[in-house]
């Protein structure tokens, strides 16, 4: 796949159809992937990579390239593709300035899972035929790929590309998944238990804003948490209330627009399962207002900017959320 | 122990609307004396608790023993609030911060050329009044000051009644405004051009403060006239939080404006990266 992508990118560059390519590039380690801009065939030959570690969602990296006269080629995984559709719906990107190629994703490896297993001094990680070979200074180990696949990929919502100019590989399907199981487990707890759970998770937050800045739905020019006139522009949580508030408000602001790409949890340096907040909103929206997947098609109306006269009453919450 | 991050209370004793968007605040401590001693060009952190804290230059001369003055232009959140204050209101101040103009060494015995634009007169006014106080130590003093209009000239009353007073020995004030207006018979035009027109002799020491664009063109003009960068002093301002070179945001290269500045000699400044 990587070679196909490289070849196609070079072809499009050579033909002048596009002048820039947004893809991924490898760093120091096998698992270290940076989104990168390529402008020549040499750069692509040298650095371009597409493998099981290419987690970063490229949809938001197109922002600075949409005012150019010439087109930018962007490779999109199915997740990125949903985010891109949502951004186009919200008029945040200029579709005309982009050339989108959908590429399949076979599940990305979460290196944190490998590290959490106690592996350190990792020199290389190779993913081949469903096995992941980890070579370290302190010995080698082989995992079955599903053991170290990231949570978001294990619960893949869709392998379909809602938008593309060109598709590589196959036309994927919307997947059956168990992504709401964890949410349901939390919902089944008592308020005390839930509170304890979230306190434990959110108290680790260092307010680095990585979740916000990586999120393809967080596209405000000035975030409310950066706006000195909002009264909530705190840089660091001085009190537990503020940790809660930041995450509640952030989740609320992307409610109905979050495509569940899982970037927030991937980038969190403190391993806070932020996707569980977003999934709660997604789950509730599905339950209360009918199944809705943000980024499924261009021009969809987001649930929170929409209503029906027959919407459920808010006391549904008090009744336990059963419609 | 000197608690640099804990301010002291200052009482506003007088507020004067100097121009449509600039107010002059007189501040003393609770004991009626000046909150602290400073040198010309130094700054203080002024704050209204709950609103914010910001660095302002102390515009009064150290030779003024009675009170401290701040000349504040309304342009952001804190300054808007400050403009709403009335005499008797308490604020907090801490300082003094930064270096000062070398009034006691490099300037001594020199002819001074002071160039200011808009509210940029505030920090150099301290120098002017200090030099007027110790008149014998310095040579001639030329002041070129410009603003958008006559109304926008800060300290206009003081300029006319004191600096331009015929009794004042060897102080020449050259005022200019940007555009023609009624009841103004002085010079019209931008400061950089006016400085060139006045064609000063190049043995003067220059002190300059004003908007970045004015500094840029005046500097170029002065160099054209034959001034050396070593003769020119200016004062800088960047966002500051601590005032003591620790919070890490007011640096230009390896220099912190709050600690190593705000007064820079032009040749020192040109060695620093262009990020201000």
């Amino acid at each position, binding site marked *: 796949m990587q070679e196909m992508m490289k070849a196609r990118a070079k072809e499009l560059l050579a033909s002048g159809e596009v002048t820039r390519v947004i893809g991924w590039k490898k760093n120091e380690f096998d698992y270290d992937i940076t989104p990168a801009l390529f402008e020549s065939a040499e750069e692509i030959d040298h650095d371009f990579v597409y493998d099981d570690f290419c987690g970063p969602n490229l949809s938001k990296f197109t922002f600075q390239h949409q005012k150019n006269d010439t087109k930018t080629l962007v490779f999109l995984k199915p997740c990125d593709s949903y985010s891109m559709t949502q951004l186009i719906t919200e008029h945040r990107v200029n579709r005309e300035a982009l050339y989108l190629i959908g590429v399949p994703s076979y599940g990305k490896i979460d290196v944190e899972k490998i590290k959490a297993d106690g592996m350190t001094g990792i020199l290389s990680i190779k993913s081949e035929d469903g096995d992941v070979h980890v070579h370290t200074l302190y010995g080698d180990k082989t995992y079955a790929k599903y053991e170290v696949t990231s949570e978001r990929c294990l619960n893949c919502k869709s392998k379909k590309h809602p938008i593309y100019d060109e598709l590589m590989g196959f036309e994927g399907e919307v997947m059956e998944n168990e992504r709401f199981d964890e*949410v349901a487990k*939390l*919902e089944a707890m008592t*308020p*005390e*238990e*839930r*509170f*304890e*759970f*979230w*306190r434990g998770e959110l108290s680790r937050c260092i307010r680095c804003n990585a979740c916000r800045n990586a999120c393809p739905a967080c596209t405000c020019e000035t975030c*409310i948490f950066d706006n000195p006139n*909002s009264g*909530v522009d705190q840089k660091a949580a*001085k*009190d*537990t*209330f*503020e940790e*809660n*508030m930041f995450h*509640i*408000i952030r*989740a*609320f602001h992307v*409610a109905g627009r979050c495509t569940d790409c899982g970037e927030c949890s991937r980038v969190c340096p403190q391993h806070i399962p932020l996707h569980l*907040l977003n999934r*709660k*909103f997604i789950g*509730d*929206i599905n339950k*209360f*207002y009918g199944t809705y997947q943000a980024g499924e098609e261009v021009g969809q109306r987001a*649930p*929170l*900017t*929409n*209503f*029906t*006269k027959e*919407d*459920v*009453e*808010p*006391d*549904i*919450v*008090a009744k336990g*959320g059963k419609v | 122990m000197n608690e640099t991050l804990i301010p002291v209370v200052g009482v506003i004793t007088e507020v004067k609307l100097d121009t449509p968007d600039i107010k002059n605040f007189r501040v003393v401590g609770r004991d009626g004396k000046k909150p602290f001693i400073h040198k010309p060009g130094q700054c203080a952190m002024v704050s209204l608790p709950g609103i914010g804290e910001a660095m302002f230059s102390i515009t009064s001369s150290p030779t003024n023993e009675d009170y401290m003055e701040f000349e504040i232009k309304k342009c952001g959140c804190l300054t808007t609030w400050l403009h709403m204050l009335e005499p008797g209101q308490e604020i907090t101040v801490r300082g003094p911060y930064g270096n000062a103009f070398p009034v006691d060494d490099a300037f001594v015995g020199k002819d001074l050329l002071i160039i200011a634009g808009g509210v940029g007169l505030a920090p150099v006014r301290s120098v002017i009044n200090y030099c007027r106080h110790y008149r014998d130590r310095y040579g001639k003093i030329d002041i070129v000051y410009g603003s958008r209009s006559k109304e926008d000239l800060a300290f206009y009353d003081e300029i006319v009644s004191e600096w331009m007073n015929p009794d004042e020995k060897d102080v020449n004030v050259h005022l200019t405004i940007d555009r023609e207006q009624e009841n103004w018979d002085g010079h019209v035009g931008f400061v950089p051009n006016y400085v060139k027109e006045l064609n000063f002799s190049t043995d003067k020491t220059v002190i300059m403060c004003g908007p970045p664009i004015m500094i840029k063109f005046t500097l170029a003009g002065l160099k054209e006239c034959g001034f050396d960068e070593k003769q020119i002093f200016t004062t800088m301002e960047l966002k500051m939080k601590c005032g003591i070179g620790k919070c890490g945001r007011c640096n230009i290269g390896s220099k912190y404006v709050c600690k190593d500045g705000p007064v820079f000699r032009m040749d020192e400044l040109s060695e620093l990266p262009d990020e201000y």
Partner: protein
Amino acid sequence: MSMNEFKPKIVAFCCNWCSYAGADLAGTNRLNYPADVKIIRVPCSCRVNPLFILRAFQRGADGVILCGCHPGDCHYTTGNYYARRRMTLLFSMLDYLGIEKERTRVEWVSAAEGAKFATVMNDFVKTVTELGENKRLEDLRCKK
């Protein structure tokens, strides 16, 4: 603080056109509801931003109730339909984070329903009193 002494602080956001008038009516009809209910008048129930609700809790509210016109009766035609969706989702989220769902409520009270306003408030205060102090979404700095 023992339970029988505990008086909850309740913030009630009331829409200007219906619920605030409803509260007025309750007052002129001399219907009793606890003084612990602090009413904040808003132009429309959909003016209430999630931050308002959180801020109320931060500043020491033990319960927050939002009152608006009955769906279909909004002065601005559709405001309360949006508010309905927002608050449903927000309160569900608060519950998910462990802030008991009984501490938050939405009620539709028209200008003519003074009696309903009083009943609702009495009932809500009773519920929150039983729950006790809000400790999960408070800002300790404001409690000093």
